[in-house]
């Protein structure tokens, strides 16, 4: 099968059995890969708690992984979140997905609970479950890797039961929005997945693919957000950090304010940062490092470890981010629970306190858990549930929703809880691409969020980095898809696939008992953001928000309460 290997591995950790599934081509064409396939395989299992043998951990590279398509090597890791109870989808870049495809597999479906700590070893078509009795063995295996090997593992945070722990990759970064997946691995005694892949990845027409990639590259080059003077290619996320600050959308002191300090002033010690190695084959290369070689965290991590918690020391923010990466803590959730705690206890951070708090979270005894349960459970335990800035128990990222109404709606209706990467309406609302929309208006925002969600779902299924959403739409990838698989997609068909992927997750959440939680914390409807010269940041108009959400439900084919319906599921071809 061109584009796909045609094989999905079923791995049962309970008895170590490994079987191969051969999905029908119709399934592949309906869900493509990555997040799409991960969701449909997850849906085939029961709606059990995260620490039961089911639901499985689904690891699926995007369809384009391993093919040389620019910025298209991402992998989705999906299961039921220990933190939120919803579907959880973490994303990783790097080489993992490409190598899994080169090993000959479109994905992994991992079920069961191992009797002791194990790792999954995949060396091309040789699969084994290796026992690893103590953690040092895992450390050795993680360091002993070559260019054709990649590792996904969990760290101390997951083993210690921190609910927002996340898997980490061999390049030392946490899986993006992987908070809640760490405990799922730990509950199965799954320490790591290591893959070596040396085979080719077949595409239908390599020459035509090269031409399509050149057209794609032209679109990326034309994007100021990607390749411009302050774009990701030249400044990592600093440009976006500055833009959010200019728009007074910087979450500050647990979202009590929306403006901290000028990022230029705050990050001046880091202004000599230079581009670092990015994901292999990516022309954007958004990674940055300090002059002494420390990786600069993503813009949202930097923002949360400074403004959100009221820390004016960028060095401490770097230390906090590095600690999270080392032990496998989702940095957004980590910063958020600290911010909630500071507000509830009316404390302010002092020097060194941030990292000390993170260590405290890591080492909380199992019978005294509070912060390690995440901001929502912590705040509720303190009788201050409304001080958790989260949706469906997933903490808000580094963009204040009072600054963009499409963003606000997107946070509320996202299947994984608050996440800016689920819909990415900021392309229209902040970056003026493809055309500018009034960020303070709800006009057309229901359709905007639905359209963007469908588009992002397609990108996720193809393994395309979210950043490319600032420059392209799925229609721009139709030609690539055709040269790879022989499918003849168009923008409309891709939109249907995106809708199908999104709706599959809503069916999952419905099965998990999640419903009626498409909302934002009351703070955003009651309190204004910080005014700026030339504009105010008012609270969100609650009535307008609810009307917009209602329109969104209708567009999405959901019930009045936001739950999936059998009719829409059938129309989209979902069981």
């Amino acid at each position, binding site marked *: 099968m061109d584009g796909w290997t045609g094989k999905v591995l079923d791995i049962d950790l309970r008895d170590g059995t490994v079987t191969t599934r051969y999905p029908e081509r119709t399934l592949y064409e309906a869900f493509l890969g990555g997040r799409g396939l991960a969701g449909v395989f997850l849906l085939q299992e029961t709606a059990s708690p995260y620490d039961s043998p089911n639901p499985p951990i689904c690891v699926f590279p995007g369809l384009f992984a391993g093919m040389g398509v620019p910025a298209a090597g991402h992998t989705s890791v999906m299961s039921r979140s220990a933190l939120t109870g919803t579907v959880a989808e973490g994303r990783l870049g790097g080489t993992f997905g490409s190598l899994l495809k080169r090993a000959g597999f479109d994905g992994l479906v991992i079920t069961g609970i191992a009797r002791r700590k194990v790792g999954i070893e995949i060396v091309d078509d040789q699969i084994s479950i290796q026992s690893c009795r103590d953690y040092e063995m895992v450390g050795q295996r993680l360091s002993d890797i070559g260019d054709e090997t990649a590792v996904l593992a969990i760290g101390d945070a997951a083993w210690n039961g921190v609910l927002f722990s996340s898997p980490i990759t061999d390049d030392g970064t946490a899986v993006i929005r992987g908070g809640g997946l760490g405990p799922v691995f730990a509950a199965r005694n799954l320490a790591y997945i290591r893959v070596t892949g040396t085979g080719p990845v077949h595409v239908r027409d390599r020459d035509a693919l090269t031409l399509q990639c050149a*057209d794609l590259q*032209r*679109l990326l080059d*034309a994007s100021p957000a990607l390749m*411009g003077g302050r774009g990701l290619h030249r400044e990592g996320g600093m*440009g976006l950090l*500055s833009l959010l600050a200019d728009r007074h959308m910087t979450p500050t002191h647990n979202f009590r304010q929306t403006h901290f300090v000028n990022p230029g002033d705050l990050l001046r010690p880091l202004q000599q940062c230079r581009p670092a190695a990015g994901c292999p084959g990516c022309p954007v290369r958004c990674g940055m490092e300090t002059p002494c070689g420390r990786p600069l965290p993503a813009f949202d991590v930097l923002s949360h470890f400074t403004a959100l918690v009221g820390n004016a020391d960028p060095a401490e923010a770097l230390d906090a981010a590095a600690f999270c990466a080392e032990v496998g803590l989702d940095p957004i959730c980590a910063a958020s629970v600290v911010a909630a705690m500071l507000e509830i206890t009316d404390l302010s951070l002092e020097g060194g306190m941030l990292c000390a708090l993170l260590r405290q979270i890591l080492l909380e005894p199992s019978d005294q858990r509070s912060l390690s349960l995440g901001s929502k459970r912590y705040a509720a335990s303190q009788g201050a549930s409304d001080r958790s800035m989260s949706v469906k128990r997933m903490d808000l990222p580094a963009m204040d929703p009072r600054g963009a109404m499409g963003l606000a709606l997107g946070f509320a209706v996202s299947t994984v809880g608050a996440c800016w990467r689920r819909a990415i309406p900021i392309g229209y609302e902040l970056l003026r691409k493809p055309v500018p929309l009034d960020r303070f208006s709800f006009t057309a925002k229901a*359709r905007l969020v639905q359209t963007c969600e469908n588009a992002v779902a397609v990108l996720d299924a193809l393994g395309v980095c979210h950043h490319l959403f600032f420059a392209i*739409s799925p229609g721009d990838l139709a030609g690539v898809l055709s040269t790879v698989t022989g499918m003849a997609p168009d923008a*409309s068909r891709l939109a249907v696939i995106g809708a199908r992927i999104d709706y599959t997750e809503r069916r999952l959440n419905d099965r998990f008992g999640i419903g009626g939680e498409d909302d934002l914390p009351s703070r955003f409807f009651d309190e204004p953001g910080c005014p700026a010269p030339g504009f105010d940041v008012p609270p969100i108009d609650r009535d307008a928000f609810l009307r917009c959400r209602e329109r969104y439900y209708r567009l999405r084919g959901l019930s009045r309460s936001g739950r999936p319906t059998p009719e829409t599921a059938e129309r989209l071809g979902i069981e």
Partner: protein
Amino acid sequence: MKSWVCRTADQLQRRGLATAADLVVGAIEETFHFAGATDRVPMAREIMERLDCGAFVSFCPVTPYRDILRFLSESGTDIRPNDSETRTFLHDIPVVSADPEAIAAALRRRRAVVLHGGEIMAVGAVSPEEAAVYGTSVCFAIYVKFMVDTLACLREGTMESSRIPVLERVMSFLTPLSCPPVRCRGPFASISAAMEAMEETGRMVVENDLVDSCFGNISLRHDEVLYISQTGAPLDNLEGCIDPCPLDGPAGTLTASSEFLAHLRIVQQTGCDAVLHGHPKFAVILSLDCEERCSSRICHTDCPAQRSVNGVPIVTGEVGAGANGLFQTVPEALMENDAVIVLGHGLFVRSDMDFASAVRRMFELENACMKTFIRKVTAARKQRS
């Protein structure tokens, strides 16, 4: 939403591209909203329903665009534009029959299509303005393509008989541009005065058809800050769409024009204060008029020849700041010249203190290029006859 579609319809008419009787603009939120000719609404609605799209524009452009479109659509084959922006963002322009399903099928592949007989249809995901931008891009693309192909046909002796009346019709509309006086003169005492100069210049170039509204860009240095139009900003309505970029700070903003780096380097390397970038048609047409038969994929990035038009150098360069970006070629060329044409793309002009000489130069060059085009056509036709 209703005001949105009406505003878009007004813009198309104000730009002189269509009359109210020949256009329809549609958008949907809870319900459909349309502006324009009521007899076009049923077709528009049907196509929007088939596509489930948020916005739609359809118009029969005025002459001479209409004549060109009818000619180009006669063959039934997709139109492959040669100008840089259309190549990058629209790729090609399908030609379809007036059957709603055929139209919808084509619009599922591409953002804009042309019907046999010369109607343009375009879609937007959410905003009618998005659809309008794609639609107006088609007008520019087909004009440039027709004229470039005509020059090639004349040179090679392959002129179709059906092309001749169209050419004559198009040429009958050619009149030299009259450069209006530039009111805002430097040095500028304040930021607001500087911005007013940018707004005035932007209006001037759009109103004289030297660039489509949401294309082109403009910058002005004032007190060591480079003020530049935002990406996608309407040059004829720049109020609130200008970003200040300190010259000693980080390189611009995320919302600055995609050609910010070019503007920055021009100002830094030439010492000028004002930079104006437009897409005057005849400058673009003549830049594409070349006797060599290189692969079109090479022309925009690796043209081996040193070419010029009316003494203005032509350089290669793609849109934006990638490896082949025009920011690599334009600034250097402007060190020795006050104007540069980017092959298949447009014209950059620079001036000191204010936009007066830049505007004058742009008008003068476009008139010169128009004259050169007419001379080439006349001479070639005389030779053939």
